[in-house]
């Protein structure tokens, strides 16, 4: 019998697959993983503390910087939470604009997911194709808000600008090309036997475990639980759209990948419906210049971000600055499952698991 000894290896924070500052202290026996200890905080920017010294409107740009890969979604959650706090009703047109850009954000985020999964597994070209298509979405964000990545487009009571005329042909041609894009990903990535072998049966998370650990979003749906806040607890105008909730079966990395690719198509469906039904009118509600919610009011508002349940718990103290803003970041909670799914796997499976749990460290570290 050969005597072996477990050893520790640090994946990250400086590592090609650390997704921006994740440190996974891995205890290994050869190539087998015994345990993973996740260390966070390398991208901690004290966003919640900053919120307490900014007015409600001033905090909007900071929320964009939480999940910078789908920057419209965290802003959407924040402004809706403040609207709840104030009791503001948003104009119809603004609601539709919000849905369109939010779903485009979701597609962009899922494209980053597929691309980063591809590159983490070593398929450089897969990444380039996904990023190429995401570029078209960023161009649309540039048209609508003036910024590509960190748009801060939402405002309390609406959005900052109306959609420009050039936006509609761009989004329509994107939707037209979407099926071709998806079939290209299927051809290059999903159909690839190596990628299948790398993902299938890797990082299995059971439905019960996922719920107990608070895993949400596509990661939860990959376990076969059709739980989507857009459907279960509709916010904004999401109850008006027809879309499917793709679910997986076994909860492994492969399901997490496939569910996201299918969600890209569903988001495309929602955008098409929103474009069809969009009314004309105002894009901003009348909001007082200085926002002072009632003292002692608190609200917890959650939305389905591309990573999972993104919640804002805001407590007001009657001044123009919030008393407390807590961000329930989906990446933060989802990462809790990383040790769980990685134990007993191989070193290379950790890379797959990090990629398919799809954390954004800006969000989890805040």
């Amino acid at each position, binding site marked *: 019998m050969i005597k072996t000894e477990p050893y520790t290896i640090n994946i990250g924070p400086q590592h090609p697959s650390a997704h921006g500052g994740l440190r996974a202290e891995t205890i290994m026996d050869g190539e087998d993983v015994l345990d993973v200890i996740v260390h966070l905080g390398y991208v901690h920017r004290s966003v919640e503390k900053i919120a307490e010294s900014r007015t409600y409107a*001033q905090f909007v740009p900071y929320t964009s910087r939480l999940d910078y890969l789908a920057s419209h979604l965290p802003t959407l959650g924040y402004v809706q939470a403040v609207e709840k706090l104030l009791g503001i009703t948003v104009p119809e047109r603004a609601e539709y604009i919000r849905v369109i850009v939010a779903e485009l954000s979701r597609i962009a985020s899922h494209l980053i997911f597929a691309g980063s999964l591809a590159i983490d597994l070593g398929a450089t070209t897969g990444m380039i194709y996904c990023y190429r298509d995401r*570029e078209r979405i960023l161009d649309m964000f540039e048209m609508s808000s*003036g910024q590509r990545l960190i748009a801060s487009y939402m405002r309390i009571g609406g959005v900052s600008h109306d959609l420009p005329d050039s936006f509609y042909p761009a989004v329509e041609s994107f939707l037209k090309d979407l099926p071709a894009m998806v079939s290209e990903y299927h051809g290059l990535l999903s*159909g*690839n036997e190596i990628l299948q072998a790398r993902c299938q049966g890797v990082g299995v998370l059971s439905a019960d475990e996922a719920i107990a650990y608070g895993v949400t979003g596509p990661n939860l749906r990959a376990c076969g639980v059709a739980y989507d806040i857009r459907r279960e607890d509709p916010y904004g105008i999401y109850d008006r759209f027809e879309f499917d909730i793709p679910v997986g079966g076994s909860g492994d990395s492969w399901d997490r990948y496939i569910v996201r690719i299918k969600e890209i198509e569903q988001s495309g469906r929602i955008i098409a419906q929103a474009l069809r039904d969009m009314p004309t009118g105002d894009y901003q509600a009348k909001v007082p210049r200085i926002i002072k919610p009632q003292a002692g009011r608190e609200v917890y508002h959650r939305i389905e971000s591309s990573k999972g349940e993104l919640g804002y718990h805001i407590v007001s103290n009657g001044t123009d600055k919030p008393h407390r803003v807590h961000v329930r970041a989906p990446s933060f909670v989802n990462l809790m499952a990383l040790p769980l799914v990685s134990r007993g796997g191989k070193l290379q499976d950790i890379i797959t698991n990090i990629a398919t749990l799809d954390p954004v460290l800006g969000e989890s570290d805040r």
Partner: protein
Amino acid sequence: MIGKGLLKGLGITFKHGKEKNITVQYPEVMPYLQERYRGCLEFDPKDCIVCGMCIKACPNNVLSLESAAMPGSKKKQLVSYTIDLQYCMFCNLCVEACPTNTLYFTHHFELSTAERGAIKRIYTPAPGTPVADGESEAVIIPPEALADQVDTEAEAKRLKQVQAMKGAISKGNSKVLAKFVDSEEDASLLLIILQGDEKKQDKMAALMIDDKDKARKVATAFVAKEKRDKAKSEEGKQ
């Protein structure tokens, strides 16, 4: 059959070999920027009405302005306007807040500078520019001219006094403070407050030289607040 997916992938990459490149050769070919693109934040001094809305809207204290009262009018006139671009998040909040479109974003996006200080942009109205509002005949005085009006000798003397006062405070001389508060006890309390806070110390020393009445008011306010806080924290413990 195993290998079919692999071959299909090879086919896809082969097909793309013939397609048009998507690279934009950046320095030679400038990227196409959309109309709303937020590049560099710029300021146009001639339209500014010195309302300060932009400064209130800015989340990160990027903007600041200096203004002077306009003679014979309640209105103010701009002396200088500073955009400290290194803290700017390009969030558009100031542009939306500005009522006269004085602040705007240009498409210029190459913002790096060789020195840290150079990224700070200071705008002054052109000397002799009449203020946009036609009511008064006020003329913008350039800040350099304003600086000349200050009596340099008096200013130097004042600064010396302020420094002396600060020295007394930090050494723990509560007698200098006694004039500004009601009792000896309060003076020692004020001393503790001021020693604990550099900013307050500066402010107080300056006030004690410039405006004795105001200094007294501020001092009493500080002491009163401290007492209140103490009482509260005791209450909290109980």
